[in-house]
């Protein structure tokens, strides 16, 4: 449960321009939207007919703690879970929602009622029928507080769930929720067989008992080693963005847990596995533009950027000048470039740059300005210096602690923070103290509102929900939100309750701008997934709702 806000993603994003040749750019000209860079790196597949059959081995970074979509809060678990679990609606790369297990859906004018007409030909892996009652069972189970299901938070705006007819589901909301469709599209609210749900507790352990409706069934799990997936021959209900109908091409797939970067890369380069996820910057050259291999970079839109969240209710961060000095005192661009060797983009907002609601105007609006930062600190009265060269005021050193929970430390992110630390010390005499804490200590700080700076990436969700969960009234600051930034909270809440898309966009942009202007966040880099694979693997892509690699439904292996 602990990995909730620090989803386990992998860094590494290549600039579009590096990947797109002119010819491919022309091919792509008609396709707009986030995440499309991935198409560029796919081997030419224009005249090929997909081949059914065969197997594939996929090496991944993370072994999920729990395989139950409703309970798992590790982003890397969804790469696997998506193979056996479908959702009611599907999120397209351009931000539109497409049919999936719901043939159609409609929102009422006041935004408080949603109707879903469900497909009537869907069957769960255990033979149970999929219908409105099954969906109701899923959602009611998730939102029942006594079950303590993490995905329940996505359904908090719901007042009642009604099975109007066998294949007609209606959701009644307490108030408009602009994030609802995104929540419904989330793998976290993927649909499980009611029989499996009622059987209860042990779904976290995976295996055939974990019955969804997905293109693969969960055939077996060897802890510490692998997951076995088998094609669901009955499957004929792919998401609206899928490239084909009917069952998946692959007969079987094996997901291998290979937590070491170099082991994954070596296993792929020596032909022992077919696809890997998570390629460290120094290994990219082995696969990118290399004969026999392909390298794909996913979008940075669904998850938030890796961001320093500052608790502005605790001294000295209560002073906006101190926060702004922290924001502009280090050369984030250069640090990100040196730590990640140009494989990821520096972030300007905590909303990912490929998200349709990203506020692009923030680019270049803040950042390195040492003179200004020093001036702000002088004005704020931090004019003394101690023996180590740090600024002081009334005998107290200017410093703020970054408490980084150990379970979330990965991808050299601690090294990046150390870089910021060194620059702030040198440039400003600002003591940014990095301390690795336990998950439990973070939980305690969160409950008491005593955390000072929390570095994180947030699980994929609607951007408004991300803003709310990170910097909104019920976000990390909730214990002390009465002392928080009311204007920021207001923008986020207005965005959540907006009834038109324009209104939502306006408030989401305003909230991002407010957060950066007030320096309650210092975005560092936009994380994205990479895939490296043998060149004969076709149909690899990324899921817009997650940023992470799509399931293996459209994937096939060329002879």
């Amino acid at each position, binding site marked *: 449960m602990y990995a909730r806000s620090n989803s386990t993603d992998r860094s590494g994003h290549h600039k579009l321009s590096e990947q797109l040749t002119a010819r491919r750019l022309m091919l792509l000209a008609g396709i707009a939207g986030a995440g499309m860079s991935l198409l560029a790196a796919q081997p030419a597949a224009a005249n090929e007919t997909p081949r059914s059959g065969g197997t594939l081995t996929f090496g991944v970074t993370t072994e999920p703690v729990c395989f139950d979509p409703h309970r798992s809060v590790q982003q890397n678990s969804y790469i696997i879970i998506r193979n056996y679990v479908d959702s009611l609606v599907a999120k397209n790369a351009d931000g539109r929602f497409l049919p999936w297990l719901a043939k159609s859906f409609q929102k009422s004018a006041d935004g408080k009622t949603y109707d879903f007409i469900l497909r009537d030909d869907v069957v769960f892996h255990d033979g149970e029928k999929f219908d409105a009652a099954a969906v109701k069972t899923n959602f009611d189970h998730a939102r029942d*507080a006594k079950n303590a299901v993490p995905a329940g938070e996505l359904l908090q705006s719901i007042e009642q769930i009604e099975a109007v007819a066998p294949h007609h589901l209606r959701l009644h909301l307490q108030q408009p929720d602009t994030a609802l469709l995104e929540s419904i599209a989330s793998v976290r609210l993927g649909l499980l067989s009611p029989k499996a749900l009622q059987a209860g507790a042990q779904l976290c352990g995976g295996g055939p008992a974990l019955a969804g409706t997905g293109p693969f069934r969960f055939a077996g799990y060897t802890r510490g080693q692998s997951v076995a997936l088998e094609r669901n021959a009955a499957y004929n209900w792919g998401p609206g963005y899928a490239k084909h109908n009917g069952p998946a091409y692959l007969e079987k797939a094996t997901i291998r847990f*290979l937590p070491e970067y170099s082991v994954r890369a070596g296993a792929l380069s020596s032909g022992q596995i077919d696809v890997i996820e998570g390629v460290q910057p120094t290994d990219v050259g082995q696969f990118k533009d290399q004969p026999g291999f392909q390298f794909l970079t996913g979008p940075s839109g669904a998850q938030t950027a890796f961001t320093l969240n500052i608790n502005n209710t605790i001294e000295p961060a209560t002073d906006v000048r101190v926060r702004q000095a922290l924001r502009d005192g280090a050369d984030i661009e250069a640090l990100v470039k040196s730590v990640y060797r140009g494989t990821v983009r520096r972030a300007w907002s905590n909303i990912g740059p490929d998200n349709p609601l990203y506020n692009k105007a923030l680019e270049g609006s803040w950042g390195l300005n040492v003179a200004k930062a020093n001036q702000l600190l002088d004005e704020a009265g931090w004019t003394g210096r101690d023996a180590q060269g740090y600024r002081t005021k009334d005998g107290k050193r200017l410093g703020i602690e970054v408490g980084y929970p150990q379970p979330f430390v990965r991808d050299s992110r601690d090294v990046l923070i150390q870089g910021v630390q060194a620059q702030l010390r040198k440039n400003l005499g600002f003591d940014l103290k990095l301390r690795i804490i336990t998950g439990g200590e973070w939980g305690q700080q969160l409950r008491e509102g005593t955390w000072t700076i929390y570095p994180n990436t947030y699980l994929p969700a609607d951007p408004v929900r991300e803003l709310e969960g990170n910097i909104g009234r019920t976000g990390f600051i909730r214990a002390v939100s009465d002392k928080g930034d009311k204007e920021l909270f207001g923008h986020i809440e207005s965005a959540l309750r907006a009834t038109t898309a324009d209104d939502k966009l306006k408030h989401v942009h305003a909230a991002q701008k407010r957060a950066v202007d007030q320096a309650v966040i210092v975005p560092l880099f936009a994380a994205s997934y990479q895939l490296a694979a043998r060149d004969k693997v076709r149909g690899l892509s990324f899921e817009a709702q997650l940023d992470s690699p799509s399931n293996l439904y459209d994937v096939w292996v060329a002879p």
Partner: protein
Amino acid sequence: MTSTRAMITKRIAPRLLTGLLVAWGAVTAAFIGMHALPGRVEDILAGDMSWPGLREAIAQEWGLDQSVWSQYVGFIWRIAQGDFGTSYVMRQPVADVIGPQIWPTVHLALSAGILAVVLAVLAATLTAGRGRIARAAASLIELACVSAPVFWIGLLLLLAFSFTLRWFPVSGADGWRALVLPAVTLALPTAGLLAQVLREAMEKALVQPFVVTTRARGIGETLLRLRHVLRHAALPAVTLGGWLVGGLLGGAVITEKVFGRPGLGTVTLNAVLSQDAPVVLAVVMLAALIHVLASTALDVAYVFIDPRLKVQ
């Protein structure tokens, strides 16, 4: 017969009884440690989630609303009945989580242990008391094996024998081929240490009067070393063996991670990071029991190696 029975009553039974005490002590220490960590279990399980009644629901589900003392007594009582409880984060019975992981780890540690002993005996018998260059070379290799981190040895072996030569698969636990590289990885540091201790002991033994006597009988050098000197030199190495069992189990955790093998490693690591008390406590207890069993076995081994101990 009588001597065997005497050995059981005199040596083994008391050791096993103490072993239970050790296991209880270890589990109690771990229990205290888990509770001394900052943050409540509800906080960890709730993560960033928050809605009215959530923490209370979690506390009730796991019995965290009771006093620490009654949680402890309940825990020990259940363990005594063979019930290790349910993992907080994996939400499955601890026995189901850990049970299937024991054999892969034991299999790996055992293979590595045997390999380490063979390598160490070979290295020591071949080089003890020989020319300076041979000894220096062996010492250097042993030192490198002892000092190198296990994961680094693993990566080097993978690079050479899996990625480049493709003799062995990179990961998994299917068949002997998948066991070779992990076992060698885990064996090398142990073998290095054992070889050094063994060589020193052999060199001491080689200058003993009994060696001169035996040589005078006209015995060949190899036979002398294997039959007489090695036995003499084995005692200090066996003493070290108890400690090495711990090293092998600890090293197995890292080896399993590098090679993507099933075993207690990943389970333990994740449980510690997420403060999943029921799993951590079960692993601690298991480790304590293994230590007790290993040291009892070594105690018995002394008697066989050194018959003088039987008389005492």
